[in-house]
């Protein structure tokens, strides 16, 4: 059996860990650079949703909060909203926030991805755009126009 795939994305952002945490967990902020709101109370065991910034407020992704250490580490399960109940198809995202010199090193590790799955294709397109846009948003106040 082919082993499940892991992708690792790293970006350095000239900001502070608490601002990165806020930008990832507050819907009002995620909406600005990601066009979606991440919605949860971010306690371990709670659910989270990735909700489109449209009139219908379409839920695109769902999952559970596995681990949550504010300003440091967030571990989520990650599933397509259409496959919300089929957890065998869910993958896992680990977000690590560390201070390196006067920068923040943000690492997104996405694992348990099924080889050649639709989700794998989406996230390999998605994460570099999200992280570039987040970096621009936090450093300049302006997100990238990457979803136009």
């Amino acid at each position, binding site marked *: 059996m082919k082993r499940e795939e892991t*992708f690792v994305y790293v970006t350095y952002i000239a900001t502070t860990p608490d601002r990165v945490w806020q930008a990832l967990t507050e819907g009002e902020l995620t909406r600005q650079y990601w066009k979606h709101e991440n919605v949860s109370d971010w306690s371990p065991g709670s659910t989270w949703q990735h909700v489109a910034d449209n009139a219908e407020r379409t839920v695109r992704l769902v999952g559970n909060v596995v681990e949550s250490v504010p300003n440091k580490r967030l571990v989520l399960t990650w599933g397509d909203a259409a496959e919300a109940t089929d957890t065998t198809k869910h993958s896992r995202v680990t977000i690590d926030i560390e201070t390196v010199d006067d920068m923040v090193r943000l690492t997104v590790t996405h694992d348990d991805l099924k080889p050649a799955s639709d989700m794998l294709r989406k996230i390999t397109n998605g*994460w570099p755009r999200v992280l*570039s846009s987040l970096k621009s948003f936090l450093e300049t106040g302006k997100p990238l126009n990457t979803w136009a």
Partner: protein
Amino acid sequence: MKDNEKVFKALADPSRRKLIDRLHERSGQTLTELCEGLDMTRQAVTQHLALLQDANLVTVKWRGREKLHYFNAVPIHDIYERWIRKFETQRLTALHEFKQKLEKENGK
């Protein structure tokens, strides 16, 4: 050196581009796996990987005693946003104007 300059420098070498291609094909490889079938010494691969890591194009994670190398696409995306996208937009606008001009000439 600024981040982007490191990325451009890292990408300027064909051996390093080859390593990126191999990690893009399959992310998460050991040094031994990466060296397989390559016309490079293990030492040369190690040096290239260090430079790629310094440019943030490669990230290392340990899985037990295995040191796995992952390709990180974010710096290349940053360059795309900064250096490629805006020129694409201009080209698309030019194409759009050309189309309108032709359609006007055809009396549409």
